[in-house]
């Protein structure tokens, strides 16, 4: 029990911005704060495979949602946004994959509670080769994205 508490404390105290497990590095993860009552949200991150072999992200879970899946938003030439589920995300050797708004994203389905006022959620990523990785994903408000540039 003491050991668990200790590692939990260490985890909280030294929660890094990037996480590594085997050859896989995950960084810049964040999840979108959504309006009260919304049952879904999306998370984004960069996943790098530093190894020389292909790895696969096969499963995700989170304390914040019933289900966690990877989806891809596609906006076609007619402006129609469609989503596609990616069941297994291939991570080519030596490459970085960026999950970002308007493209590939981690979808949190069935939020257990509102993300408003919560600093971060915990997410577990299961890689075929690198194994499990527990990460802390900060919640970001999108009300004003900071993208506003005044002139």
């Amino acid at each position: 029990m003491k050991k668990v508490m200790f590692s939990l404390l260490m985890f909280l105290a030294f929660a890094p911005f990037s996480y590594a497990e085997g050859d896989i590095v995950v960084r810049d993860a964040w999840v979108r704060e959504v309006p009260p009552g919304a049952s879904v949200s999306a998370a984004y991150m960069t996943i790098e495979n530093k190894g020389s072999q292909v790895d696969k992200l096969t499963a995700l879970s989170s304390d914040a949602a019933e289900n966690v899946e990877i989806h891809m938003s596609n906006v076609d030439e007619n402006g129609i946004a469609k989503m596609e589920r990616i069941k297994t995300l291939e991570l080519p050797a030596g490459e970085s994959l960026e999950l970002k708004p308007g493209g590939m994203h981690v979808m949190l389905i069935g939020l257990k509670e509102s993300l408003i006022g919560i600093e971060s959620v915990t997410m577990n990523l299961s890689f075929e080769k690198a194994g499990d990785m527990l990460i802390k994903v900060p919640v970001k408000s999108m009300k004003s994205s900071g993208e506003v540039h005044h002139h």
Partner: protein
Amino acid sequence: MKNKKVFRILIAILCLILIGWGIILYQIMDVKSKADFYGNVYEREAPEFTLTDHNGSRVSLSDYDDKVVLIFFGYANCPDICPMTMSAVNNVMDELGDKSKEVQVLFVSVDPERDTEEKLKSYMNYFNDSFVGLTGTPEEIDRVADDYNVFYEKEYVDSASEYLIGHNSSILLITPDGEIFLRYPQNRMDPASIAADIERVL
């Protein structure tokens, strides 16, 4: 006598040439000024509609004929594109400052089965309490989407979410005189540039 007639004809020809030049110049300038807009020029009459707002009142497009209307279609369970669009529009309002009072943002739900008035209300208020969420019966939504050339359909992807909705994600700018003037697809959602367009239209 003869000279006078020739003179008159010359004057008439000169006038015609000047008018011709005027028309050509006007068209060139008009085209140029339209090309200067950040949004894609659309220029279509905005079809009238009546839907239910997030407070349960029936509202029509013509209720906002003293404002520039930014209208787009989406749904509350949309995790990626819709919140991106919502925050872009909210940033447009921030950019406009005081002038944002002359702009009305309308969000039409393409998921009337799940987007109740209360749900839309909390969704809108989260971003900006001046935004109005609109819903209606599935038939009403169908008609409005059809009138606005907005395609949407339920997608039953193999996912834990019951269904997602593929939909047109552009923002339409409607002028106070009832014309869909500009269109902003997903790759044209820079808030400062949209705000600059609105300032020119106001």
